[in-house]
């Protein structure tokens, strides 16, 4: 009994220490067309209530560079954009920290903006967690994402199939109902012969070929 209690308390303590890790979520990749605006979304999950001291921090590492620069920081209820960063006049904070959303919008992207953006969110006292990366890829013409056309073709064909089968059974049901109502109106009662022959269950069903 005491050992069970001790085991339960150890397990609960283990879960509780895991509970204080914050999880940050962003996209994996973002594909955009050159010249357009892109919204980089970042949200987090935390076991504590969203405090007033929540902070969001975005940094950027260009493709091929080794170091990342800080481009945005939100703290004490105010957003701060790096005044000498590569996005100083193109970055806008579009998130809602009360709803755990720390997204930023970058306007008029160019090929130089290819790189990795990192979002780090902290919700005191919950400050232990890993930042999350999103890769930005800028294209002249955005190609169709892998699997979209595949899924569309499969979905349309299977949908048509289900539709055809449903219509077939509906027609059969309507025709049978109409035949039934007609026979009721004429007072005929000899319609019971149809169903008797279809309920035989042969032991081994056999087939033969005939043209």
């Amino acid at each position: 009994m005491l050992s069970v209690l001790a085991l339960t308390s150890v397990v609960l303590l283990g879960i509780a220490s895991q509970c204080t890790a914050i999880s940050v979520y962003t996209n994996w990749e973002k594909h955009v067309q050159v010249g357009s605006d892109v919204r980089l979304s970042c949200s987090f999950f935390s076991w504590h209530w969203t405090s007033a001291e929540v902070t969001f921090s975005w940094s950027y590492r260009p493709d091929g560079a080794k170091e990342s620069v800080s481009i945005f920081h939100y703290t004490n209820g105010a957003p701060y954009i790096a005044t000498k960063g590569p996005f100083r006049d193109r970055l806008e904070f579009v998130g809602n920290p009360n709803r755990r959303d720390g997204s930023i919008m970058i306007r008029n992207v160019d090929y130089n903006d290819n790189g990795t953006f990192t979002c780090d969110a902290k919700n005191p006292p919950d400050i232990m967690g890993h930042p999350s990366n999103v890769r930005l890829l800028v294209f002249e013409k955005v190609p169709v994402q892998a699997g979209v056309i595949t899924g569309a073709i499969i979905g349309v064909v299977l949908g048509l199939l289900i539709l055809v089968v449903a219509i077939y059974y509906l027609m059969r049901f309507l025709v049978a109902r109409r035949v039934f109502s007609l026979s009721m109106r004429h007072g005929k009662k000899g319609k019971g012969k149809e169903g008797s022959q279809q309920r035989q269950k042969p032991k081994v069903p056999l087939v033969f070929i005939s043209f």
Partner: protein
Amino acid sequence: MLAILFATLVLHLTDLIILFVSTCANAWRIHGADSYDLWYRCAQSNGGYTCKGTGEEEWLQAVQALMVLATIFSLTSFIIFLCQLFTLVKGGRFFFTAVFQILASLFVMSGAIIYTVMSPKWESDSDSYGYAFVLAWLAFPLTLVSGLIYIVLRKKE
């Protein structure tokens, strides 16, 4: 009579297995030890494989969809055959089964044709078509024959 039933079942099962292998194996085009298409591009470098996903070309996604649909339809046709075997009236034909199997053969034919026409030109002599491509072309006449057999098959007793 039992032999006909057995032979039909074996043919249909063979079709199913060929379709599954052709759809799932990643060996439509081979270049030495590298394998390309339908789902990955795997190249060998420094003793290990690096695989990238394919699929941003529209024709390749269409081939993927057609192969998956052919497999699904062939599987559905098999299940319907087993159902109809026990519920058809005497002398009835297996129309539903035949329709699905022939549709499966049409999809496999379209997929194989699109791949043959649209696959990029070979760059070197060690490029060749892989076994999955051969199986796809083999699946087309086999499923067609199987579907036609179901049209002439009748239920006895």
